Protein backbone atom coordinates (compact mmCIF):
# COMPACT_ATOMS: atom_id res chain seq x y z
CA UNK A 1 0.00 0.00 0.00
CA UNK A 2 1.80 3.05 -1.22
CA UNK A 3 1.27 6.68 -0.34
CA UNK A 4 -0.12 7.26 -3.82
CA UNK A 5 -2.89 4.69 -3.44
CA UNK A 6 -3.70 5.97 0.06
CA UNK A 7 -4.01 9.50 -1.23
CA UNK A 8 -6.12 8.28 -4.15
CA UNK A 9 -8.45 6.54 -1.71
CA UNK A 10 -8.63 9.63 0.49
CA UNK A 11 -9.33 11.84 -2.50
CA UNK A 12 -11.99 9.38 -3.73
CA UNK A 13 -13.93 9.67 -0.47
CA UNK A 14 -13.52 13.44 -0.11
CA UNK A 15 -14.56 14.07 -3.71
CA UNK A 16 -17.60 11.83 -3.24
CA UNK A 17 -18.64 13.62 -0.05
CA UNK A 18 -18.16 17.06 -1.59
CA UNK A 19 -19.44 16.44 -5.10
CA UNK A 20 -22.52 14.37 -4.23
CA UNK A 21 -24.74 17.35 -3.21
CA UNK A 22 -23.49 19.21 -6.28
CA UNK A 23 -24.65 16.33 -8.50
CA UNK A 24 -28.08 16.43 -6.84
CA UNK A 25 -28.20 20.19 -7.38
CA UNK A 26 -27.20 19.79 -11.01
CA UNK A 27 -29.96 17.22 -11.63
CA UNK A 28 -32.53 19.38 -9.85
CA UNK A 29 -31.48 22.43 -11.82
CA UNK A 30 -31.88 20.67 -15.15
CA UNK A 31 -35.17 19.17 -14.06
CA UNK A 32 -36.50 22.63 -13.27
CA UNK A 33 -35.23 24.06 -16.55
CA UNK A 34 -36.70 21.25 -18.62
CA UNK A 35 -40.03 21.68 -16.87
CA UNK A 36 -40.10 25.44 -17.52
CA UNK A 37 -39.67 26.36 -13.87
CA UNK A 38 -37.09 28.84 -12.69
CA UNK A 39 -34.16 26.72 -11.63
CA UNK A 40 -32.72 26.69 -8.10
CA UNK A 41 -29.05 27.47 -7.68
CA UNK A 42 -26.52 24.69 -8.10
CA UNK A 43 -25.49 25.20 -4.49
CA UNK A 44 -29.00 24.75 -3.13
CA UNK A 45 -28.31 21.26 -1.66
CA UNK A 46 -25.33 22.68 0.27
CA UNK A 47 -27.52 25.48 1.63
CA UNK A 48 -30.12 22.91 2.63
CA UNK A 49 -27.48 20.86 4.45
CA UNK A 50 -26.12 23.99 6.12
CA UNK A 51 -29.59 25.02 7.24
CA UNK A 52 -30.48 21.58 8.57
CA UNK A 53 -27.21 21.13 10.45
CA UNK A 54 -27.90 24.36 12.35
CA UNK A 55 -31.46 23.44 13.25
CA UNK A 56 -32.54 21.69 16.37
CA UNK A 57 -33.31 18.01 15.92
CA UNK A 58 -36.74 17.14 17.21
CA UNK A 59 -37.23 13.57 18.35
CA UNK A 60 -40.47 11.75 18.95
CA UNK A 61 -41.16 10.83 22.55
CA UNK A 62 -40.86 7.08 21.99
CA UNK A 63 -37.89 7.16 19.66
CA UNK A 64 -35.41 4.40 20.43
CA UNK A 65 -31.63 4.67 19.96
CA UNK A 66 -32.15 2.90 16.62
CA UNK A 67 -34.02 5.94 15.35
CA UNK A 68 -31.19 8.23 16.33
CA UNK A 69 -28.47 5.90 15.04
CA UNK A 70 -29.97 5.07 11.66
CA UNK A 71 -28.90 8.30 9.87
CA UNK A 72 -25.28 7.74 10.89
CA UNK A 73 -25.38 4.11 9.76
CA UNK A 74 -26.95 5.15 6.46
CA UNK A 75 -24.34 7.82 5.82
CA UNK A 76 -21.60 5.36 6.78
CA UNK A 77 -22.91 2.73 4.33
CA UNK A 78 -23.13 5.20 1.49
CA UNK A 79 -19.69 6.67 2.17
CA UNK A 80 -18.16 3.20 2.21
CA UNK A 81 -19.98 2.40 -1.03
CA UNK A 82 -18.54 5.54 -2.62
CA UNK A 83 -15.11 4.56 -1.32
CA UNK A 84 -15.29 1.18 -3.03
CA UNK A 85 -16.55 2.42 -6.39
CA UNK A 86 -13.57 3.39 -8.55
CA UNK A 87 -14.53 6.86 -9.71
CA UNK A 88 -11.08 8.42 -9.89
CA UNK A 89 -8.55 5.63 -9.53
CA UNK A 90 -8.60 1.84 -9.63
CA UNK A 91 -5.76 1.64 -7.14
CA UNK A 92 -7.92 1.78 -4.02
CA UNK A 93 -6.77 0.14 -0.77
CA UNK A 94 -10.37 -0.30 0.39
CA UNK A 95 -11.55 -1.93 -2.83
CA UNK A 96 -10.60 -5.54 -1.90
CA UNK A 97 -12.87 -5.17 1.14
CA UNK A 98 -15.98 -5.61 -0.98
CA UNK A 99 -16.71 -6.75 -4.50
CA UNK A 100 -19.82 -5.87 -6.49
CA UNK A 101 -21.99 -8.36 -4.60
CA UNK A 102 -20.97 -7.00 -1.21
CA UNK A 103 -21.65 -3.54 -2.55
CA UNK A 104 -25.27 -4.52 -3.23
CA UNK A 105 -25.35 -5.84 0.33
CA UNK A 106 -24.07 -2.51 1.59
CA UNK A 107 -26.95 -0.68 -0.07
CA UNK A 108 -29.32 -3.26 1.41
CA UNK A 109 -27.89 -2.66 4.89
CA UNK A 110 -28.54 1.06 4.62
CA UNK A 111 -32.05 0.42 3.40
CA UNK A 112 -32.74 -2.04 6.20
CA UNK A 113 -31.76 0.41 8.92
CA UNK A 114 -33.62 3.38 7.52
CA UNK A 115 -36.74 1.25 7.09
CA UNK A 116 -36.50 -0.07 10.65
CA UNK A 117 -36.05 3.47 11.91
CA UNK A 118 -39.10 4.61 9.97
CA UNK A 119 -41.17 1.87 11.62
CA UNK A 120 -39.65 2.58 15.02
CA UNK A 121 -41.70 5.71 15.65
CA UNK A 122 -44.93 3.93 14.87
CA UNK A 123 -46.57 6.55 12.69
CA UNK A 124 -48.62 5.37 9.76
CA UNK A 125 -46.52 7.18 7.16
CA UNK A 126 -43.24 5.77 8.36
CA UNK A 127 -44.58 2.21 8.20
CA UNK A 128 -46.09 2.83 4.78
CA UNK A 129 -42.84 4.26 3.47
CA UNK A 130 -40.82 1.41 4.95
CA UNK A 131 -43.03 -1.22 3.34
CA UNK A 132 -42.89 0.46 -0.03
CA UNK A 133 -39.14 0.91 0.23
CA UNK A 134 -38.71 -2.78 0.96
CA UNK A 135 -41.03 -3.67 -1.95
CA UNK A 136 -38.92 -1.63 -4.34
CA UNK A 137 -35.68 -2.82 -2.77
CA UNK A 138 -36.29 -6.54 -2.90
CA UNK A 139 -37.25 -6.32 -6.57
CA UNK A 140 -34.39 -4.03 -7.52
CA UNK A 141 -31.66 -6.07 -5.84
CA UNK A 142 -31.83 -9.21 -8.03
CA UNK A 143 -31.94 -7.03 -11.13
CA UNK A 144 -28.89 -5.10 -9.97
CA UNK A 145 -27.05 -8.35 -9.18
CA UNK A 146 -27.86 -9.70 -12.64
CA UNK A 147 -26.52 -6.50 -14.22
CA UNK A 148 -23.31 -6.84 -12.24
CA UNK A 149 -23.02 -10.54 -13.14
CA UNK A 150 -23.40 -9.98 -16.86
CA UNK A 151 -20.65 -7.37 -16.88
CA UNK A 152 -18.52 -9.55 -14.59
CA UNK A 153 -18.81 -12.40 -17.10
CA UNK A 154 -17.09 -10.27 -19.69
CA UNK A 155 -14.44 -8.87 -17.38
CA UNK A 156 -13.93 -12.17 -15.56
CA UNK A 157 -14.15 -10.70 -12.09
CA UNK A 158 -16.72 -9.34 -9.69
CA UNK A 159 -14.36 -6.75 -8.26
CA UNK A 160 -15.31 -3.33 -9.60
CA UNK A 161 -11.72 -2.13 -9.87
CA UNK A 162 -10.73 -5.17 -11.96
CA UNK A 163 -13.80 -4.72 -14.16
CA UNK A 164 -12.86 -1.11 -14.85
CA UNK A 165 -9.24 -2.03 -15.62
CA UNK A 166 -10.13 -4.88 -17.99
CA UNK A 167 -12.91 -3.04 -19.82
CA UNK A 168 -10.85 0.13 -20.19
CA UNK A 169 -7.94 -1.87 -21.61
CA UNK A 170 -10.12 -3.53 -24.23
CA UNK A 171 -11.27 -0.24 -25.69
CA UNK A 172 -14.73 0.41 -27.13
CA UNK A 173 -16.51 -2.64 -28.55
CA UNK A 174 -20.13 -3.55 -29.14
CA UNK A 175 -21.11 -5.97 -26.42
CA UNK A 176 -24.77 -6.76 -26.80
CA UNK A 177 -25.04 -8.04 -23.25
CA UNK A 178 -23.49 -4.86 -21.87
CA UNK A 179 -26.10 -2.79 -23.70
CA UNK A 180 -28.89 -4.84 -22.18
CA UNK A 181 -27.24 -4.54 -18.80
CA UNK A 182 -26.97 -0.78 -19.33
CA UNK A 183 -30.68 -0.36 -19.91
CA UNK A 184 -31.47 -2.62 -16.96
CA UNK A 185 -29.07 -0.68 -14.76
CA UNK A 186 -30.74 2.60 -15.69
CA UNK A 187 -34.12 1.22 -14.63
CA UNK A 188 -32.72 -0.09 -11.34
CA UNK A 189 -30.90 3.16 -10.63
CA UNK A 190 -34.10 5.14 -11.19
CA UNK A 191 -35.98 2.91 -8.77
CA UNK A 192 -33.26 2.79 -6.13
CA UNK A 193 -32.65 6.52 -6.06
CA UNK A 194 -36.33 7.40 -5.68
CA UNK A 195 -36.49 8.95 -9.12
CA UNK A 196 -39.56 9.73 -11.14
CA UNK A 197 -41.08 6.63 -12.69
CA UNK A 198 -41.03 4.99 -9.27
CA UNK A 199 -40.93 7.79 -6.72
CA UNK A 200 -40.82 11.55 -6.91
CA UNK A 201 -38.06 13.10 -4.79
CA UNK A 202 -39.89 16.45 -4.75
CA UNK A 203 -43.30 15.24 -3.68
CA UNK A 204 -45.06 15.39 -0.37
CA UNK A 205 -48.23 13.82 -1.66
CA UNK A 206 -49.17 11.11 0.80
CA UNK A 207 -50.39 8.55 -1.67
CA UNK A 208 -47.33 8.46 -3.86
CA UNK A 209 -44.31 9.14 -1.71
CA UNK A 210 -41.86 6.42 -0.77
CA UNK A 211 -38.57 7.97 0.24
CA UNK A 212 -40.19 11.09 1.67
CA UNK A 213 -42.55 9.00 3.79
CA UNK A 214 -39.59 7.11 5.22
CA UNK A 215 -37.87 10.21 6.50
CA UNK A 216 -40.93 12.21 7.45
CA UNK A 217 -40.17 12.06 11.18
CA UNK A 218 -36.59 13.21 10.86
CA UNK A 219 -35.50 16.79 11.37
CA UNK A 220 -32.40 18.89 11.97
CA UNK A 221 -29.02 17.22 11.71
CA UNK A 222 -30.53 13.76 11.32
CA UNK A 223 -32.41 14.89 8.23
CA UNK A 224 -29.27 16.58 6.95
CA UNK A 225 -27.37 13.30 7.25
CA UNK A 226 -30.12 11.44 5.43
CA UNK A 227 -30.27 13.99 2.63
CA UNK A 228 -26.52 13.82 2.31
CA UNK A 229 -26.68 10.03 2.25
CA UNK A 230 -29.33 10.18 -0.50
CA UNK A 231 -27.01 12.40 -2.56
CA UNK A 232 -24.15 9.99 -1.90
CA UNK A 233 -26.30 7.09 -3.03
CA UNK A 234 -27.02 8.84 -6.30
CA UNK A 235 -23.30 9.54 -6.63
CA UNK A 236 -22.42 5.92 -5.89
CA UNK A 237 -24.93 4.64 -8.43
CA UNK A 238 -23.61 7.08 -11.03
CA UNK A 239 -20.12 5.85 -10.17
CA UNK A 240 -21.13 2.20 -10.63
CA UNK A 241 -22.82 3.04 -13.92
CA UNK A 242 -19.76 4.87 -15.20
CA UNK A 243 -17.46 2.09 -13.98
CA UNK A 244 -19.45 -0.63 -15.74
CA UNK A 245 -20.38 1.11 -18.97
CA UNK A 246 -17.96 4.01 -19.49
CA UNK A 247 -14.77 2.96 -17.74
CA UNK A 248 -12.42 5.10 -19.81
CA UNK A 249 -10.46 7.89 -18.24
CA UNK A 250 -10.07 6.39 -14.77
CA UNK A 251 -6.52 6.48 -13.46
CA UNK A 252 -4.92 3.09 -12.89
CA UNK A 253 -2.58 4.21 -10.18
CA UNK A 254 0.52 5.07 -12.16
CA UNK A 255 1.14 8.45 -10.58
CA UNK A 256 -0.62 10.85 -8.21
CA UNK A 257 -1.11 13.24 -11.13
CA UNK A 258 -3.16 10.70 -13.05
CA UNK A 259 -5.82 11.06 -10.36
CA UNK A 260 -5.90 14.81 -10.93
CA UNK A 261 -6.30 14.15 -14.64
CA UNK A 262 -9.17 11.75 -13.94
CA UNK A 263 -11.11 14.37 -11.97
CA UNK A 264 -12.20 16.61 -14.89
CA UNK A 265 -13.13 13.49 -16.87
CA UNK A 266 -15.26 12.31 -13.97
CA UNK A 267 -16.96 15.69 -13.63
CA UNK A 268 -17.69 15.77 -17.35
CA UNK A 269 -19.16 12.25 -17.28
CA UNK A 270 -21.26 13.05 -14.21
CA UNK A 271 -22.50 16.29 -15.80
CA UNK A 272 -23.67 14.43 -18.90
CA UNK A 273 -25.14 11.62 -16.82
CA UNK A 274 -26.97 14.04 -14.54
CA UNK A 275 -28.41 15.89 -17.51
CA UNK A 276 -29.64 12.62 -19.06
CA UNK A 277 -31.19 11.66 -15.74
CA UNK A 278 -33.10 14.95 -15.67
CA UNK A 279 -34.29 14.35 -19.25
CA UNK A 280 -35.41 10.82 -18.36
CA UNK A 281 -37.29 12.10 -15.36
CA UNK A 282 -38.97 14.82 -17.36
CA UNK A 283 -40.20 12.63 -20.18
CA UNK A 284 -41.56 9.81 -18.05
CA UNK A 285 -44.67 9.76 -15.94
CA UNK A 286 -44.90 8.52 -12.39
CA UNK A 287 -45.96 4.88 -12.18
CA UNK A 288 -48.65 3.62 -9.91
CA UNK A 289 -47.06 1.76 -7.00
CA UNK A 290 -48.47 -1.55 -8.22
CA UNK A 291 -46.86 -1.05 -11.60
CA UNK A 292 -43.44 -0.85 -9.98
CA UNK A 293 -43.00 -4.66 -9.86
CA UNK A 294 -43.61 -4.68 -13.60
CA UNK A 295 -41.02 -1.95 -14.10
CA UNK A 296 -38.43 -3.82 -12.08
CA UNK A 297 -39.35 -7.18 -13.61
CA UNK A 298 -38.48 -5.59 -16.94
CA UNK A 299 -35.10 -4.58 -15.56
CA UNK A 300 -34.50 -8.11 -14.26
CA UNK A 301 -35.58 -9.58 -17.58
CA UNK A 302 -33.26 -7.34 -19.58
CA UNK A 303 -30.32 -8.21 -17.37
CA UNK A 304 -31.05 -11.96 -17.60
CA UNK A 305 -31.41 -11.77 -21.38
CA UNK A 306 -28.13 -9.89 -21.53
CA UNK A 307 -26.47 -12.75 -19.68
CA UNK A 308 -28.10 -15.41 -21.87
CA UNK A 309 -27.13 -13.59 -25.07
CA UNK A 310 -23.61 -13.30 -23.75
CA UNK A 311 -23.47 -17.06 -23.23
CA UNK A 312 -24.99 -17.78 -26.64
CA UNK A 313 -22.80 -15.50 -28.65
CA UNK A 314 -19.79 -16.61 -26.70
CA UNK A 315 -17.81 -13.42 -26.41
Amino acid at each position, binding site marked *: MSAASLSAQFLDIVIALLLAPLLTGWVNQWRARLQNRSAPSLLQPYRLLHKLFHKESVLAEHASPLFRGAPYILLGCMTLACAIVPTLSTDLPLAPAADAIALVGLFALGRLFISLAAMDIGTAFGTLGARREMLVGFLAEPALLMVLFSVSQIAGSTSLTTIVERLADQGPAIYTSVM*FAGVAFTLVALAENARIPVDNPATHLELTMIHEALILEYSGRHLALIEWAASLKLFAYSGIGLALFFPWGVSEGQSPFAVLYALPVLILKLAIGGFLLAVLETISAKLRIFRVP*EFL*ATAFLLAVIGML*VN*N*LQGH
Partner: protein
Amino acid sequence: MSGLSIQLIDFLAALLLMLSFAMISQRRILSLIHLFTLQGITLVATTAIVAHATGQEHLYLSAGLTFALKVILIPLLLHRIIDRLNVRWDVETLINIPTLMIIGIVLVIVAFDLALPIAKLSTSIARGTLGIALACVLLSLMMMITRSKAVPQVIGFLSLENGLFFAATASTNGMPMVVELGIALDVLVGVLILGVFMFHIREQFESLDIRHLERLKED
Protein backbone atom coordinates in the same frame (compact mmCIF):
# COMPACT_ATOMS: atom_id res chain seq x y z
CA MET B 1 -15.94 -10.99 -43.15
CA SER B 2 -15.15 -8.28 -40.68
CA GLY B 3 -15.64 -8.60 -36.97
CA LEU B 4 -17.63 -5.39 -36.91
CA SER B 5 -20.46 -6.67 -39.08
CA ILE B 6 -20.77 -9.81 -36.93
CA GLN B 7 -20.93 -7.61 -33.85
CA LEU B 8 -23.55 -5.43 -35.51
CA ILE B 9 -25.68 -8.41 -36.52
CA ASP B 10 -25.41 -9.85 -33.01
CA PHE B 11 -26.52 -6.49 -31.65
CA LEU B 12 -29.46 -6.22 -34.03
CA ALA B 13 -30.47 -9.77 -33.14
CA ALA B 14 -30.53 -8.84 -29.48
CA LEU B 15 -32.51 -5.72 -30.33
CA LEU B 16 -35.07 -7.87 -32.12
CA LEU B 17 -35.39 -10.03 -29.01
CA MET B 18 -35.83 -6.95 -26.86
CA LEU B 19 -38.57 -5.67 -29.17
CA SER B 20 -40.34 -9.03 -28.93
CA PHE B 21 -40.37 -8.72 -25.16
CA ALA B 22 -41.56 -5.14 -25.41
CA MET B 23 -44.44 -6.35 -27.57
CA ILE B 24 -45.45 -8.94 -24.99
CA SER B 25 -45.67 -6.33 -22.27
CA GLN B 26 -47.26 -3.57 -24.33
CA ARG B 27 -50.90 -2.82 -23.62
CA ARG B 28 -51.59 -0.11 -26.17
CA ILE B 29 -52.40 -1.07 -29.73
CA LEU B 30 -50.80 2.04 -31.18
CA SER B 31 -47.50 1.35 -29.41
CA LEU B 32 -47.66 -2.24 -30.64
CA ILE B 33 -47.74 -1.00 -34.22
CA HIS B 34 -44.80 1.30 -33.52
CA LEU B 35 -42.87 -1.63 -32.07
CA PHE B 36 -43.70 -3.72 -35.11
CA THR B 37 -42.37 -0.94 -37.36
CA LEU B 38 -39.17 -0.86 -35.31
CA GLN B 39 -38.82 -4.61 -35.77
CA GLY B 40 -39.13 -4.04 -39.51
CA ILE B 41 -36.37 -1.42 -39.41
CA THR B 42 -34.14 -3.84 -37.49
CA LEU B 43 -34.75 -6.48 -40.15
CA VAL B 44 -33.92 -4.08 -42.95
CA ALA B 45 -30.66 -3.10 -41.23
CA THR B 46 -29.73 -6.76 -40.68
CA THR B 47 -30.43 -7.70 -44.29
CA ALA B 48 -28.43 -4.75 -45.58
CA ILE B 49 -25.47 -5.62 -43.34
CA VAL B 50 -25.55 -9.29 -44.37
CA ALA B 51 -25.75 -8.20 -48.02
CA HIS B 52 -22.78 -5.90 -47.57
CA ALA B 53 -20.76 -8.47 -45.64
CA THR B 54 -21.35 -11.43 -47.96
CA GLY B 55 -21.50 -9.45 -51.18
CA GLN B 56 -24.79 -10.97 -52.28
CA GLU B 57 -26.51 -8.43 -54.50
CA HIS B 58 -30.02 -9.88 -54.30
CA LEU B 59 -30.10 -9.32 -50.53
CA TYR B 60 -30.16 -5.57 -51.14
CA LEU B 61 -33.32 -6.10 -53.13
CA SER B 62 -34.67 -8.16 -50.27
CA ALA B 63 -33.85 -5.35 -47.83
CA GLY B 64 -35.64 -2.87 -50.05
CA LEU B 65 -38.66 -5.15 -50.26
CA THR B 66 -38.70 -5.57 -46.48
CA PHE B 67 -38.50 -1.82 -46.05
CA ALA B 68 -41.38 -1.16 -48.42
CA LEU B 69 -43.55 -3.86 -46.90
CA LYS B 70 -42.78 -4.05 -43.20
CA VAL B 71 -41.78 -0.50 -42.46
CA ILE B 72 -44.18 1.39 -44.71
CA LEU B 73 -47.03 -0.61 -46.20
CA ILE B 74 -48.12 -2.98 -43.43
CA PRO B 75 -47.88 -0.41 -40.59
CA LEU B 76 -49.86 1.97 -42.81
CA LEU B 77 -52.50 -0.70 -43.36
CA LEU B 78 -52.61 -1.43 -39.63
CA HIS B 79 -52.99 2.27 -38.85
CA ARG B 80 -55.88 2.47 -41.29
CA ILE B 81 -57.51 -0.61 -39.81
CA ILE B 82 -57.34 0.66 -36.23
CA ASP B 83 -58.60 4.05 -37.36
CA ARG B 84 -61.59 2.57 -39.12
CA LEU B 85 -62.30 0.11 -36.33
CA ASN B 86 -61.94 3.01 -33.93
CA VAL B 87 -59.62 1.13 -31.59
CA ARG B 88 -56.64 3.48 -31.89
CA TRP B 89 -56.49 4.25 -28.19
CA ASP B 90 -57.61 0.85 -27.00
CA VAL B 91 -55.85 -0.48 -23.95
CA GLU B 92 -55.95 -4.19 -23.43
CA THR B 93 -56.18 -5.52 -19.90
CA LEU B 94 -53.24 -7.84 -19.57
CA ILE B 95 -52.91 -9.66 -16.33
CA ASN B 96 -49.64 -10.31 -14.66
CA ILE B 97 -46.97 -9.10 -17.00
CA PRO B 98 -44.10 -10.18 -14.68
CA THR B 99 -45.30 -13.79 -14.95
CA LEU B 100 -45.47 -13.48 -18.73
CA MET B 101 -41.93 -12.15 -18.73
CA ILE B 102 -40.64 -15.03 -16.65
CA ILE B 103 -42.33 -17.53 -18.98
CA GLY B 104 -40.68 -15.55 -21.77
CA ILE B 105 -37.25 -16.03 -20.18
CA VAL B 106 -37.89 -19.79 -19.97
CA LEU B 107 -38.84 -19.80 -23.66
CA VAL B 108 -35.63 -17.95 -24.50
CA ILE B 109 -33.55 -20.47 -22.58
CA VAL B 110 -35.30 -23.36 -24.37
CA ALA B 111 -34.77 -21.71 -27.75
CA PHE B 112 -31.08 -20.99 -27.08
CA ASP B 113 -30.53 -24.54 -25.90
CA LEU B 114 -32.25 -25.99 -28.98
CA ALA B 115 -30.32 -23.79 -31.36
CA LEU B 116 -26.90 -24.49 -29.90
CA PRO B 117 -26.22 -27.86 -31.63
CA ILE B 118 -27.60 -26.56 -34.92
CA ALA B 119 -25.47 -23.44 -34.73
CA LYS B 120 -22.35 -25.58 -34.28
CA LEU B 121 -22.96 -27.19 -37.67
CA SER B 122 -23.58 -23.90 -39.40
CA THR B 123 -20.82 -22.05 -41.20
CA SER B 124 -22.66 -18.82 -41.94
CA ILE B 125 -21.57 -15.49 -40.55
CA ALA B 126 -23.64 -15.04 -37.43
CA ARG B 127 -24.38 -18.42 -35.93
CA GLY B 128 -25.51 -17.14 -32.57
CA THR B 129 -28.49 -15.45 -34.13
CA LEU B 130 -30.40 -18.68 -34.85
CA GLY B 131 -31.26 -19.10 -31.20
CA ILE B 132 -32.47 -15.53 -30.97
CA ALA B 133 -34.62 -15.91 -34.08
CA LEU B 134 -36.16 -19.08 -32.64
CA ALA B 135 -36.79 -17.26 -29.36
CA CYS B 136 -38.53 -14.45 -31.26
CA VAL B 137 -40.79 -16.94 -32.99
CA LEU B 138 -41.71 -18.61 -29.68
CA LEU B 139 -42.31 -15.26 -28.00
CA SER B 140 -44.58 -14.12 -30.82
CA LEU B 141 -46.51 -17.37 -30.52
CA MET B 142 -46.91 -16.72 -26.81
CA MET B 143 -48.11 -13.22 -27.56
CA MET B 144 -50.76 -14.61 -29.91
CA ILE B 145 -51.89 -17.03 -27.21
CA THR B 146 -52.12 -14.47 -24.43
CA ARG B 147 -53.95 -11.74 -26.35
CA SER B 148 -57.70 -11.75 -26.65
CA LYS B 149 -58.17 -8.87 -29.08
CA ALA B 150 -57.91 -9.38 -32.81
CA VAL B 151 -55.47 -6.62 -33.78
CA PRO B 152 -52.71 -7.60 -31.30
CA GLN B 153 -53.06 -11.19 -32.47
CA VAL B 154 -52.48 -10.13 -36.05
CA ILE B 155 -49.45 -8.12 -34.96
CA GLY B 156 -48.21 -11.22 -33.11
CA PHE B 157 -48.56 -13.21 -36.31
CA LEU B 158 -46.62 -10.60 -38.26
CA SER B 159 -43.84 -10.45 -35.70
CA LEU B 160 -43.63 -14.26 -35.86
CA GLU B 161 -42.99 -13.93 -39.56
CA ASN B 162 -40.33 -11.32 -38.75
CA GLY B 163 -38.56 -13.87 -36.56
CA LEU B 164 -38.61 -16.45 -39.36
CA PHE B 165 -37.34 -13.94 -41.87
CA PHE B 166 -34.55 -12.97 -39.51
CA ALA B 167 -33.52 -16.61 -39.09
CA ALA B 168 -33.45 -17.01 -42.87
CA THR B 169 -31.35 -13.89 -43.46
CA ALA B 170 -28.90 -13.99 -40.61
CA SER B 171 -28.17 -17.69 -40.28
CA THR B 172 -28.43 -18.93 -43.87
CA ASN B 173 -27.41 -15.72 -45.67
CA GLY B 174 -30.78 -15.28 -47.32
CA MET B 175 -33.29 -17.43 -49.15
CA PRO B 176 -33.61 -17.56 -52.95
CA MET B 177 -35.35 -14.51 -54.34
CA VAL B 178 -38.41 -16.45 -55.52
CA VAL B 179 -39.12 -17.76 -52.04
CA GLU B 180 -38.68 -14.33 -50.53
CA LEU B 181 -41.05 -12.70 -52.98
CA GLY B 182 -43.59 -15.44 -52.34
CA ILE B 183 -43.42 -14.99 -48.57
CA ALA B 184 -43.62 -11.20 -48.85
CA LEU B 185 -46.77 -11.44 -50.96
CA ASP B 186 -48.23 -14.04 -48.60
CA VAL B 187 -47.78 -11.74 -45.63
CA LEU B 188 -49.30 -8.81 -47.47
CA VAL B 189 -52.32 -10.82 -48.57
CA GLY B 190 -52.54 -12.26 -45.05
CA VAL B 191 -52.80 -8.79 -43.54
CA LEU B 192 -55.46 -7.78 -46.04
CA ILE B 193 -57.56 -10.89 -45.37
CA LEU B 194 -57.15 -10.61 -41.61
CA GLY B 195 -58.20 -6.97 -41.87
CA VAL B 196 -61.40 -8.02 -43.62
CA PHE B 197 -61.89 -10.68 -40.94
CA MET B 198 -61.60 -8.07 -38.22
CA PHE B 199 -64.39 -6.02 -39.75
CA HIS B 200 -66.56 -9.11 -39.96
CA ILE B 201 -65.82 -10.10 -36.38
CA ARG B 202 -66.78 -6.67 -35.21
CA GLU B 203 -69.97 -6.67 -37.24
CA GLN B 204 -70.99 -10.01 -35.80
CA PHE B 205 -70.11 -9.44 -32.16
CA GLU B 206 -69.74 -5.67 -31.92
CA SER B 207 -66.35 -6.19 -30.36
CA LEU B 208 -62.94 -7.40 -31.40
CA ASP B 209 -62.60 -9.76 -28.48
CA ILE B 210 -61.72 -13.18 -29.85
CA ARG B 211 -63.30 -14.88 -26.85
CA HIS B 212 -66.68 -14.26 -28.46
CA LEU B 213 -65.71 -16.77 -31.10
CA GLU B 214 -65.52 -19.55 -28.54
CA ARG B 215 -69.27 -19.91 -28.30
CA LEU B 216 -70.69 -22.06 -31.04
CA LYS B 217 -74.32 -21.02 -30.85
CA GLU B 218 -76.20 -18.04 -29.61
CA ASP B 219 -77.97 -18.37 -26.35
